[in-house]
């Protein structure tokens, strides 16, 4: 065990899978010699050569389309989309193609491929290096969408994603790449997809969160526990599609009060789906409105720092929402 950041854990997970399975390969813009703009793939091209760690042209539809074609011919590609904001050109290949090969061929063809997607607002990133794009994909049967937040989870879930016979979108919040370090096992292990994680037990309210906002929520939860004796149960979906409804509903039924927080624009976010599930299936247990917290409905985070800071739900807003719900 050594402590690792999210970024390191993902890089290590990739390297280990490539070592143990020759068919695993990486492709994307600047993933090779430069080691990725965030340096997640640093050192990989040196170890595995320019074909297995391939710099592609600037063409996201090609990147995913080629990954599909590789995946049906014996490879396990891990494609990188440099920033989530640039995934739209690949939208067709992801939602209409990769996600449907299996169904439309009645199970004859499957696409074991992983698409790594750094997302989330960062200082200086502005409108097009900031977006939380998960809602675009969390309605696509045949696709799995995961968004681990902690290093050990991320490494284990990346391994599961690569080994999964289905296409998996693997979201990495850029602001959390180096935010914390934690112990990450050295031995081979996998964290299953499709399972939520309860970070903190509590009886008063449930908070469902992921990404940067999860870190904030956990801090606030500790604070409220210490200062006010409010015990918040914090649930991280980890997989956003298909959802682990059971874990979320169990918590909702226990506390009767649910807040769903994310950094995405509120309207049309994945939080809405989670809220809908709770409102339909845990209604009898609810002691308060199903609350959501998200970014305002504007295109994305701005370049100017004051506007950026205003955009991302911060500690104060999260605390206010938790308190409102706890006191309801």
């Amino acid at each position: 065990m050594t402590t690792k950041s999210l970024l390191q854990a993902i890089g290590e997970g990739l390297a280990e899978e490539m070592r143990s399975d020759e068919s695993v390969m990486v492709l994307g813009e600047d993933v090779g010699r430069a080691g990725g703009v965030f340096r997640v793939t640093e050192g990989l091209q040196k170890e595995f050569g320019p074909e297995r760690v391939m710099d592609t042209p600037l063409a996201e539809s090609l990147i995913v389309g080629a990954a599909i074609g590789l995946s049906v011919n014996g490879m396990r590609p891990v494609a990188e989309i440099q920033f989530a904001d640039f995934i739209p050109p690949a939208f067709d290949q992801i939602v209409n193609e990769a996600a449907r090969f299996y169904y439309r061929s009645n199970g004859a063809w499957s696409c074991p491929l992983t698409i790594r997607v750094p997302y989330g607002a960062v200082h200086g990133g502005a409108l097009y290096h900031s977006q939380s794009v998960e809602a675009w994909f969390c309605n696509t049967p045949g696709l799995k969408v995961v968004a681990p937040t902690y290093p050990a989870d991320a490494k284990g879930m990346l391994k599961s994603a690569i080994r999964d016979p289905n296409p998996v979108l693997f979201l990495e919040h850029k602001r959390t790449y180096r935010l914390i370090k934690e112990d990450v096992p050295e031995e081979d292990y996998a964290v299953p997809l499709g399972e939520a994680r309860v970070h903190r037990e509590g009886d008063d309210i449930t908070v469902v969160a992921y990404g940067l906002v999860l870190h904030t929520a956990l801090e606030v939860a500790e604070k409220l526990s210490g200062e006010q004796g409010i015990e918040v149960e914090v649930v991280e979906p980890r997989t956003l599609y298909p959802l682990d409804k059971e874990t979320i509903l169990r918590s909702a039924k226990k506390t009767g009060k649910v807040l769903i927080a994310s950094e995405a624009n509120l309207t049309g976010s994945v939080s809405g789906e989670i809220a809908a599930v709770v409102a339909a299936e845990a209604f009898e247990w609810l002691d308060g409105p199903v609350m959501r917290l998200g970014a305002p409905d504007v295109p994305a985070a701005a370049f100017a720092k004051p506007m950026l800071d205003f955009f991302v739900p911060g500690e104060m807003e999260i605390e206010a929402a938790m308190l409102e719900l706890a006191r309801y």
Partner: protein
Amino acid sequence: MAIKETRAGREAHLGDDDLLKIYRYMLLARRVDERSWVLNRQGRAAFVVSCQGHEAIQVGAAYSLRPGYDYVYPYYRDLGITLTLGQTARDQFLSLLARREDPNSAGRQMPGHYSSRELNIVTASAPVGVQYPQAAGTALAFKMRGEDGVVLTCGGEASTSGGDWHEAMNFAGIHGLPVIFLIENNSYAISVPEKMQIAGSIAGRAAGYGIPGVEVDGNDVLAVYKAAKEAFERARGGDGPTLIEAKTYRLTAHSSDDDDRRYREREEIEEWRQRDPLVRFERYLEEVELLDEENKEEIEAGIKAEVDEAVEYAESAPQASPEEALDLVYAEG
């Protein structure tokens, strides 16, 4: 009729049996297609999309593939390709009638959306053009493993208008991938004529990617056969991709949902009917004395029996049950 070296065979380096086989595939494709329209007009088939006019391109190109080894990304008109690779008339009617036994999709997809794991026919989509980057990726896998597999990917002329075609051409060119882009240019995309679809020329674009571009008469099956064979050989030998533009004409409406009288003159269609690739190859085989009334009738009769049997089989085969719509969303394992 004795099997002998003929002019046709010598020219294309094909034996007489090959020539007759090619003819038979073309005829089978045509007859299966024609029967599909009959079933549609009778209200027994919801949708038909046709290969008529494209048979020479399809059979000519597919004939030198190695089924189950090379990969194919066909498009919805490519009945001639899938039959040549080993799908059957039965397969086609099972698909046309949306039966559970439909090998392409068990009734999930429209007819013409081919798929076969055994034959390496990669499940085809409806969105036009998406197959090209996929085909390039499949070719890259062959190259990475040092195998001599080739990938054939096909589409109409309008499938070159979308970005995917360009991105794939560029990628194939950069890495010298063993992929053949076969563009079946039939002059129309539904109602849109070529001059509103394509600036310059399709074959003429290959050079810009450093790729050989070949324009071929798509109604001449032996010309297509030769062009494709040469392209496959280049690819197998490590010399990279080829773009083939085969010119032809769609002899039917776009599909059974289309009424082409809105946008095509009858005279134009008649003119092209004179160049029907099937009739043309028939004349050729007669000329070189591989075909006469007798064996022609024999072949026709054989195909008719095959088609009859296939329709009958398909019509009595069960449909998928409603709940099967829920199955196979995710692969297990």
